[in-house]
């Protein structure tokens, strides 16, 4: 707001200065003061105003910053310039030169706008300089990423946010990054991620992902209790506040942006070649059962080596056959804004198309690749009904149209590794049976361990991918009305506002697919020619699902829901005697959410909240600040007596730099503030969403399992009645999760260019809803009791550092970085009562994301060692080359009791980022690095175990396994992979240190380069920028198999590298 005032005041100030200037010439003076005005870089500041306070004369510096004027000896000069801090100089303190001329070199510093910046906080705004609570205001420009999903921009950019991305698949939330404010602080089964409010509307991460940075005016993250307590029972996990732009008075302005993006996988997993595949498959068979039938004959291997007929000797690399190298996407945004004193408007629309990177086959006339088209229309209109009344109408509609393979894109990647590469070709050529139109997908019967064909067909990943497509559409409609009334006629500084919105969302999905016909090659032994024969046409001997040429149809889930929200608020803000800032806010709201897909009576009932929240602030001289906030709210989920919760918070801040004694330091340390807050926030979104009304028991009175029958039963029927099954016992005491939070913060500005904000926090989470799974059986509970039992603690630090240097008129360098460290531990948890000898099994004191596993020592040397070592999970068939685990509790057997906490938490404890942007004349360039540290993840060995058969699946062979595995020829005790096997040697697949990897990485997250054209006014374009932007360009990590950020999800749809070319035009 202040910013706008300054900008609007510009012409008036100039006029005033010129007027005063001409008047000044009339005055009679005695001493000559000569000088120049420059900025901190030494560049001359033309048009700076120099005012003699006593005489009132004013003069402007010329184009080289020079000025000259005549003053009295005791005059005080005031130097000012718009955008710069004002400085005063007492003439009497200047020593005259030999000519009696007073020389002045005045440096004006850029005004620190940051301090006057207005930040969006819960249910209102606050000036940054008077903030007590811990809030990160994010520069919206930084959130622009070429993936078009702003959740992917949060990691490393937002101090206090732990964020990571595990999939790059376009879709409904599939490529969203997960983000937690100050890390995970609860282990309940309910909501763990922050509350997201877009224009006050409770939104999902996917809603947030769909919002365009161009439309955002403010983006704040509320991190501590003082900031989020007003959200009472919903703010415990922190709050993300996003406000969209509103129109500005003036002629209509158009902002247009077009982007073309090229997207490709950051990393693909790599397969070994298929000769190796077959040789190692034979090895895997023989190494465990020396007399077994070999899966691949020498003949087949030799023909494959020779590259003979690719249909008879298939040689597939499924990743190459299923996945394109890259894909092209588009995005267009258009916004227009304008208005007059009566009405202002901001209307924006965008369209974005994100394609997947699956190959599309011409065998179908449909497109099975992922194609996600998202678009939205937003209209924000502000109407000044009276001088003091403002009505804001916001309309927002957002829609997704999706088309993609059955089962999703990640499934295709999974199928690629789970399918046999040499048993069948993807598809036989159409010429082979010219009279048939459907594609001839390859497959064959799988074989049992004794070498006999089974009645299961091999899964052909290609057929799976192209056999059909899913379509889904989502709509999200939201009209919102806000009324603001200035009540200064009652008392100065009082105002009221009301807001209400309705939000309706819907989703439906439809699958269309055919059952592929599978063919196998039948070789004529006489001349080695072959023909193909259908495997599943439904005739005698047909195996598997019978094929069909026509598309089948399946309706998938449809979800609809409705949300109504209304709130009313009173605000008061006034400054008394130039020193006392008094502010207050009271807000009351109610909300009701209903789903059309509840599935049961209780789940279909509306979810309702009502609440009253308030904020009271007092500031003295911008030096001492105190704040008290509260939320008092109720949720329908709890019993009458526990329904209302009171969540108070408070804080104080001390701005040392405004103290008198601090003045000498002010040139170095321009601003220094300490903050302390303490408070309680709640979380009512606990447990399963369908598990509502904990105060009521839930049971079935007609469960046949628990029924009984009586009677003679000889010629007569028995008398039977169904029984009672209890699904939940009533527990009227269940209530919110509570979070006590302490925050200590410091804001520092030095050298008028360096800003540092540091916050240290500690959080005590209690009342975490838990299933009491570990209640002993003698309690006799039929349903697992649930109660507010768990407790956790988290703590950490987050800091943001920025350095902004205007080197000279043309060059500006901005460097910034963030660092977030958040660690947590469970303090009370439902678990076994371990005695001293098994104390390491207890989760207490360990991170919420700590994993317990076995300690793998190495691979077994020989059978003798196996025999003389503790029996591992009762498997007496282990051999040399299987993983040898440590018998932690020395009881002579390896079982789950030997699992100890291994590695670091699976959610990173440290997220950091740093980067720089440079503006030189019309060119801008920026880059940003993002990193993650202190996390572990686990490879799921069963997913990548080569040759492992599961129905029609038979896993492929990753190159890492081919290159490093224990074999009789090369008994490497520390090989990546243990002794090969064609079945699941389950002890080897246990969670253990063998499969544990470090999750830390550093990546070049983004690079941006642009050129701004500013000579296009004559063709009606006020500004234009052509830019190149890229994300995920490079990655540094010790883990090479897949993009390490995906962690245990490495076989899924990879994270994308995106290169985009864009044009932004304003006219």
């Amino acid at each position, binding site marked *: 707001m202040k910013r706008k005032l300054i900008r609007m005041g510009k012409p008036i100030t100039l006029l005033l200065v010129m007027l005063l200037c001409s008047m000044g010439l009339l005055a009679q003076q005695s001493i000559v003061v000569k000088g120049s005005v420059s900025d901190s870089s030494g560049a001359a500041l033309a048009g700076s105003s120099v005012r003699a306070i006593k005489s009132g004369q004013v003069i402007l510096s010329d184009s080289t910053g020079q000025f000259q004027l005549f003053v009295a000896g005791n005059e005080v000069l005031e130097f000012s310039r718009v955008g710069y801090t004002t400085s005063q100089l007492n003439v009497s303190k200047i020593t005259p030169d030999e000519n009696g001329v007073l020389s002045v070199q005045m440096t004006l510093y850029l005004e620190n706008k940051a301090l006057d910046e207005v930040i969006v906080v819960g249910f209102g705004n606050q000036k940054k300089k008077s903030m007590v609570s811990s809030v990160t205001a994010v520069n919206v420009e930084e959130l622009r990423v070429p993936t078009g999903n702003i959740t992917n921009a949060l990691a490393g950019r937002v101090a206090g946010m732990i964020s990571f991305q595990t999939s790059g698949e376009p879709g409904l939330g599939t490529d969203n990054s997960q983000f937690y404010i100050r890390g995970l602080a609860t282990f309940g089964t309910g909501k763990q991620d922050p509350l997201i409010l877009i224009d006050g509307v409770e939104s999902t991460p996917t809603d947030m992902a769909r919002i365009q940075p161009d439309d955002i005016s403010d983006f704040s993250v509320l991190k501590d209790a003082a900031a989020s307590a007003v959200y009472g029972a919903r703010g415990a996990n922190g709050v993300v506040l996003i406000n969209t732009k509103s129109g500005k008075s003036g002629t209509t302005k158009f902002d247009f942006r077009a982007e073309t993006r090229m997207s490709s996988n950051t990393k693909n997993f790599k397969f070994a070649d298929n000769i190796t595949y077959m040789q190692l498959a034979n090895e895997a068979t023989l190494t465990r059962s020396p007399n077994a039938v070999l899966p691949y004959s020498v003949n087949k291997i030799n023909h494959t080596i020779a590259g003979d007929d690719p249909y008879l000797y298939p040689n597939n690399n499924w990743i190459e056959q299923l996945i394109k190298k890259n894909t092209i996407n588009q995005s267009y945004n258009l916004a227009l804004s304008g208005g007059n004193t009566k009405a202002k408007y901001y209307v924006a629309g965008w369209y974005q198309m994100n394609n997947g990177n699956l190959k599309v086959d011409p065998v179908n006339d449909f497109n099975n690749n992922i194609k996600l088209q998202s678009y939205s229309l937003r209209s924000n209109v502000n109407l000044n*009904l*009276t*001088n*003091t*009344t403002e009505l804001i109408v916001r309309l927002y509609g957002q829609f997704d149209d999706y088309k993609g393979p059955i089962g999703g894109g990640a499934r295709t990647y999974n199928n690629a590794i789970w399918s046999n590469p040499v048993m069948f070709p993807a598809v036989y050529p159409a010429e082979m049976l010219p009279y048939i139109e459907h594609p001839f997908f390859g497959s064959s019967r799988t074989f049992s361990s004794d070498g006999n064909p089974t009645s299961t067909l091999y899964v052909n990943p290609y057929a799976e991918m192209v056999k059909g497509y899913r379509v889904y559409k989502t709509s999200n409609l939201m009209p919102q009305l806000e*009324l603001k*009334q200035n009540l200064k006629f009652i008392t100065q500084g009082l105002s*009221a506002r*009301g807001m209400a919105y309705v939000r309706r969302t819907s989703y439906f999905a439809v699958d269309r697919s055919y059952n592929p016909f599978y063919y196998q090659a039948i070789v004529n032994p006489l001349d080695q020619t072959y023909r193909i024969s259908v495997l599943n046409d439904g005739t005698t001997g047909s195996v598997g699902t019978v094929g069909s040429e026509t598309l089948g149809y399946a309706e998938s889930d449809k979800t609809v829901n409705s949300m109504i929200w*209304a709130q*009313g*608020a009173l605000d008061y803000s006034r400054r008394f005697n130039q020193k006392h800032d008094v502010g207050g806010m009271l807000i*009351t*709201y*109610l909300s009701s959410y209903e789903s059309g897909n509840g599935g049961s*009576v*209780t789940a279909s009932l*509306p979810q*309702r909240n009502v609440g*009253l929240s308030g904020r009271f602030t007092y500031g003295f001289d911008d030096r001492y600040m105190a704040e008290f906030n509260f939320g008092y709210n109720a*949720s*329908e989920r709890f019993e*009458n007596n526990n*329904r209302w919760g009171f969540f108070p918070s408070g804080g104080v801040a001390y701005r040392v730099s405004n103290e008198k004694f601090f003045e000498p330091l002010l040139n170095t340390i321009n601003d220094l503030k300490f903050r302390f807050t303490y408070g309680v926030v709640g979380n009512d979104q606990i447990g399963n969403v369908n598990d509502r*009304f904990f105060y*009521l*028991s*839930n*049971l079935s*009175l007609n469960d046949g399992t*628990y*029924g*009984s*029958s*009586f*009677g*003679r*039963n000889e010629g007569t029927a028995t*008398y039977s*009645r169904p*029984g*009672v099954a209890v699904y939940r*016992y*009533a527990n009227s005491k*269940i209530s919110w999760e509570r979070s006590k939070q302490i925050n200590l913060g410091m804001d520092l500005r030095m050298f008028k260019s360096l800003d540092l904000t540091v916050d240290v926090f500690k959080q005590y989470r209690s009342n975490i809803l838990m299933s*009491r799974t570990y209640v*002993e*059986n*003698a*309690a*006799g*509970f*039929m349903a697992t*009791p649930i*109660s507010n039992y768990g407790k956790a603690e988290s703590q950490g630090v987050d800091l943001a550092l920025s350095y902004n240097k205007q080197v000279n008129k043309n060059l500006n360098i901005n460097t910034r970085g963030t660092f977030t460290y958040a660690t947590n531990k469970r303090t009370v948890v439902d678990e*076994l*009562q*371990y*005695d001293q000898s098994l104390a390491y099994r207890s989760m207490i004191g360990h991170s919420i994301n700590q994993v317990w596993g076995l300690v793998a020592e190495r691979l077994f040397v020989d059978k003798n060692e196996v025999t003389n070592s503790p029996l591992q999970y009762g498997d007496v068939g282990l051999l040399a080359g299987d993983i040898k685990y440590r018998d932690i509790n020395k009881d002579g057997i390896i*079982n789950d009791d030997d699992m100890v906490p291994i590695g670091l938490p699976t959610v990173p404890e440290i997220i950091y980022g740093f980067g720089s942007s440079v503006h030189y004349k019309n060119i801008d360039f920026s880059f940003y690095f993002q990193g993650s540290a202190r996390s572990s993840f686990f490879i799921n060995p069963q997913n990548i175990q080569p040759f492992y058969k599961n129905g029609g699946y038979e896993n492929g062979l990753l190159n890492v396994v081919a290159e490093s595995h224990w074999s009789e020829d090369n008994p490497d005790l520390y090989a990546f992979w243990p002794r090969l096997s064609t079945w699941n040697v389950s002890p080897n697949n246990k969670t253990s240190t063998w499969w544990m990897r470090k999750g830390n990485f550093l990546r070049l997250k983004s690079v941006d380069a642009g050129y701004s054209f500013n000579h296009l006014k004559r063709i009606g374009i006020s500004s234009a920028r052509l830019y190149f932007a890229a994300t995920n360009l490079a990655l540094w990590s010790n883990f090479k198999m897949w993009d390490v950020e995906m962690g245990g999800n490495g076989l899924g749809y990879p994270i994308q590298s995106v290169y985009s070319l864009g044009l932004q035009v304003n006219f």
Partner: protein
Amino acid sequence: MHTYKRIRLSAGILLMLLIFISTNSCKKFLDIVPDNVATIESAFKLRKEAEKYLFTLYSYLPENGDGWFNPSLTTADEIWYPQSDQATWHAAFRIAQGQQNKSTPYFDDWAGERKGGGSDTRRNPFKVWRGINQCNIFIENLSDLNKVRDIDPFERERWIGEAEFLKAYYHYYMLRMYGPIPIRDQSIDVDAENIFTKRAPVDDCVNYIATLLDSASRKLPIKIQDENNELGRITQPIALAIKAKLLVMAASPLFNGNPDFASFKDKEGTALFNPTYDATKWERAKTAVKEAIDLAEANGNALYTYKNDTYNLSDTLKTQMNIRNAFTTWWNPEIIWGHSNSYFINEALCVPPLERGSNFDRFSLQGVWAPPMKIVKMFYTSNGVPIDEDKTFNFTNYSQLRTATAADRYYIEPNFVTARLHFDREPRFYADIGFDGGIWYMKDSPSGSDENTYYLKAKNVQNAGYGHYQNYSETGYFVKKLSNWESTTRGQTNPTWKGYPWPMVRLADLYLLYAEALNEVQGGSSEAISYVDKIRTRAGLKGIVESWTNYSSNPTKYTSKEGLRQIIQRERSIEMVFEGERLWDLKRWKLAAEELNQDIKGWNIFGKTTESFYQERFVFNQTFITPRDYFWPIGDYDTRRNPQLVENLGW
């Protein structure tokens, strides 16, 4: 002025909105749950719903009629499965195989897990402790006269009595299995901070259960009037019978002054077993059994005898029918408590393909339940004394071959050559055991009579012999007793089984318990002998005094307390064989260590000729560790959940 009005208007709207939100009775806004959502309260609104709750309490009764879920039928040494087919072994038999452990206990009734076998979870939801908790909830609610307003007061009383009985029975069931157990007299608050139970000393458990049974029996009907709809519901005689069984168990050596468990204490040092022998426990037991017998007899319970013979059976066969049908005839007068929710379903495991039938399918006629040799030897001679005591018959060389004569035709196929062991045995042997060459009379006898009827052929590749890859008898013997003679196995169609409500208590059981208690109170009691003789008479044997005096090499055995105790124990073992009583009896007599530490043996089932078949063959060396194996392990699952819960001794 105009503007001012509008301001006031909009301010008014805002104010109204505020007032609306804050005062429009938020309570109402949040009270969204309709009244008729199903809750525990709604189960106790009407009789119709409460009845379902009552039936639910019954559903937790052990399904004894299913060998996989009967805790004792295959956990001892009565019935053996094929050794080679371990994959299909169920949890109970794995205990007999010595695989019991405390990390994942088999037939884990404490947790209600690993009953059944493989992935079978049929009974897993039926956890005994849950049943007890359900009883408590039911009793607590039904005792509140403001609930179930439409029920008749007498019926309310009866239902509470049934629930009390079931609660007592579940405690008794656990006590028998685990020794001292926590007493669960009230439902537990789900939000209690520490839901930890504590095992109570055995004597406390016994007294608690006995008192509860007394309370129940006062409320229960003496007899079921509406038999078509209510047979199987609990009556007063049932409650007294269970009390009798409880108190006899409590007076028996395992629980009464057992020095082996003297050191067994809970975490606070309380002894869970009373180490001092208390003779009055036997007095108390004697009284309880007598009360149970008197009430049962007054109600028309009597030892079963085969009547209404339409098939003109020989007297020999009638005697066999008396024995077999006492157990398998539906709701016969001997049955005090029949389990109407668990009909015997394992007849296919008992009956192999019979010689004269044409049904050769070993999938529907599996005959895998094999009595070991020692069970076969346990039966008396036809003189009614043990085979190693009989002065007139020599069984020393029991595998010696002998050819059956026409006189043997109701026992063995004439002219069939079989082992000495199969000749000159008491009628119960022929009624209960299927053996090579032995008779297996069924109602669908091919000849239509008991002559020239089914005779079993059990040598390798014969109908009932080894040969099928999975289904065969490991010992060459079969469990005839549990097969209902009215089941039909003839022809090529699938057999029709006439499973019967599993007898939970029958009168013969009480007679033998009474004899046992009498002898303990008054050694060599003639009244005790008279009760055993009732059983012997029905089994076609002469009385103890006559049999021992005339035929036994130890003719005065019955005159001493110890001697008569042995006679009663053996009589009980024979009479109650294959009923799942043997395990509990051996344990309470403290004889398990001796009996269950022996070899399981059978004939050489791989033999195709008479000579090769009748070679005794070792099957398995059973081990029983004292005192560990006298009780089930509670298991790590629960001892780690409840630090106050002590694991059983030795585990």
